[in-house]
């Protein structure tokens, strides 16, 4: 202890701390800069089309310029809603089962591994599976429903993990409170755990919605690459122009970007592609902001009012 130089030691650990701070700040700054550059580029390139109402609502053109993305915009949202309608209840059930009911045995271990594997499956594989099974074997053809089911397969693993995590993050004491009052597992789950986990669940669902909204590879082979002109007055559910018909093909925004860049022949394809990308990005940005706002709001309502 006698020859230990305290002030040298303090100088050294302070220098280490300064270096670490510097390195971390520059890494963070680099990442932020890259992101900001991409976002700015997409927004600036797409700006002329982003605020053009004719572009946002008009129908796409095959050969001449001035085409819009009206049907694609509608298809993207419709497909998203259908996907969430299928995947949220399924994931909720699976997550509740896995976190509250599942006994610790080989079968649940296999189920958990299967979910993890499914979540790292490349989306093009999901798309090709959907093409072979739903489009061809089931005979649904290129259709919204085939796309929605494929996206569900793509979405479920992530949602199950998010919801399961949210349920497991509810403090143990809350669960004890329910059980000690003689509530069954079901009552505890529905009335205590789900409300407490709701902010995290809603945030997770909205964030996964952003992912689904921007997905292209899984849809190219399932929902197809054509966007029939939609007639919103048509209520004949078997007609391809009826917007609500789930058995019609439906190109989404992300697929539109892919298609127009790979086989588009319209003269203004760059402008259309840039505009579509900007619209897509604004929508996903909106989902992310929405997720935060709703999550915060629910959190506040839970603890204060």
């Amino acid at each position, binding site marked *: 202890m006698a020859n230990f130089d305290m002030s040298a030691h303090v100088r050294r650990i302070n220098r280490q701390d300064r270096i670490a701070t510097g390195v971390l700040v520059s890494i963070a700054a680099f990442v932020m800069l890259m992101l900001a550059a991409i976002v700015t580029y997409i927004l600036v390139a797409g700006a002329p089309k982003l605020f053009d109402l004719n572009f946002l609502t008009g129908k796409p053109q095959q050969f001449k310029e001035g085409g819009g993305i009206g049907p694609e915009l509608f298809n993207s949202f419709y497909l998203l809603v259908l996907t969430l309608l299928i995947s949220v209840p399924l994931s909720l059930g699976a997550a509740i089962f896995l976190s509250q009911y599942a006994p*610790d045995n080989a079968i649940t271990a296999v189920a958990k591994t299967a979910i993890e594997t499914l979540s790292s499956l490349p989306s093009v594989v999901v798309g090709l599976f959907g093409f072979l099974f739903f489009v061809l074997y089931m005979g649904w053809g290129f259709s919204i429903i085939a796309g929605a089911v494929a996206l569900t397969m793509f979405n479920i693993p992530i949602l199950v993990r998010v919801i399961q995590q949210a349920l497991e993050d509810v*403090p143990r*004491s*809350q669960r*004890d*409170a*329910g*059980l*000690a*009052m*003689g*509530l*069954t597992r079901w*009552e505890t789950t529905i*009335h*205590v755990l789900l*409300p*407490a986990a709701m902010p995290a669940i809603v945030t997770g669902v909205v964030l996964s919605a952003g992912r689904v909204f921007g997905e292209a590879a899984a849809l190219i082979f399932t929902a197809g690459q054509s966007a029939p002109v939609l007639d919103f007055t048509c209520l004949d559910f078997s007609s391809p122009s009826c917007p609500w018909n789930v058995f019609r093909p439906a190109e989404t925004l992300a697929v539109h970007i892919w298609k127009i860049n790979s086989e588009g022949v319209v003269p203004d394809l760059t402008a259309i592609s840039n505009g579509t990308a900007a619209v897509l990005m604004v929508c996903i940005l909106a989902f992310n902001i929405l997720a935060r706002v709703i999550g915060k709001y629910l959190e506040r*309502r*839970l*603890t*204060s*009012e």
Partner: protein
Amino acid sequence: MTDFENEQGAAVRDAGAQVDEPMISIRDFNLWYGDFQALKGVTLDIPKNCATAFIGPSGCGKSTLLRTFNRMCDFVPTVRTEGAIEVAGRDIFSGDANELRVRVGMVFQHPNPFPMSIRDNILYGPRRMRRLGRAEADELVERCLRDAGLWDEVRDKLGQSGLGLSGGQQQRLCIARALATQPEVLLMDEPTSALDPISTALVEELMVQLARERTVVVVTHNMQQATRVADKTAFFYLGELVESGPTKQLFGNPVQQKTKDYLTGRFS
């Protein structure tokens, strides 16, 4: 001298209580977590409408025994029991666990109100069992909150979330919630160890009042708390019940050397 008088007073009161059947009777009870035996041959009577305190060093089995009374220990996967426990004359292991938990309420170390309004926290238990009219519900909420000494602080914000209250208030809300289903027994597992001194004093006062009309069993690591609130105290060590008796006698004149050593701080 005063100690002696108090001792006699307690003995007389205890004799009065002995006329009734004990609220909880434990006979040669053993409990294992896997290979570890957490409770060894415990035999104890817990008198009706009194406060009973369990004391002892950490890991002595006092919380385990408390959690057996409402079968919360069932949730530990490897748990195994032997021996008999009766609450109000009924074997707790033969009936339905959820029905037992309605009759035996519990308050935990950390306040854990449900993520809902103060009013709904209290009404949740009763509403599961029967429909409540508006007036009846209002009256129940007020009575439970008054019994838990919280009414004056929250009467104007019954619609607000129970999670927005301070720690001490949350704990009293949990007590009010436990009272709402009118349990015969109220179990309290170190109910003040997460609270500040003022809240602790309020909750202790509450325990004394509550024990007039129902059976209260409290686990505490705080020996002073046991002397302040409990009529009867049981001392546990390494899974065994070392000694039990009227609180005044156990603290003033313990029979076992182990109890003396613990009370005088020889080990903890």
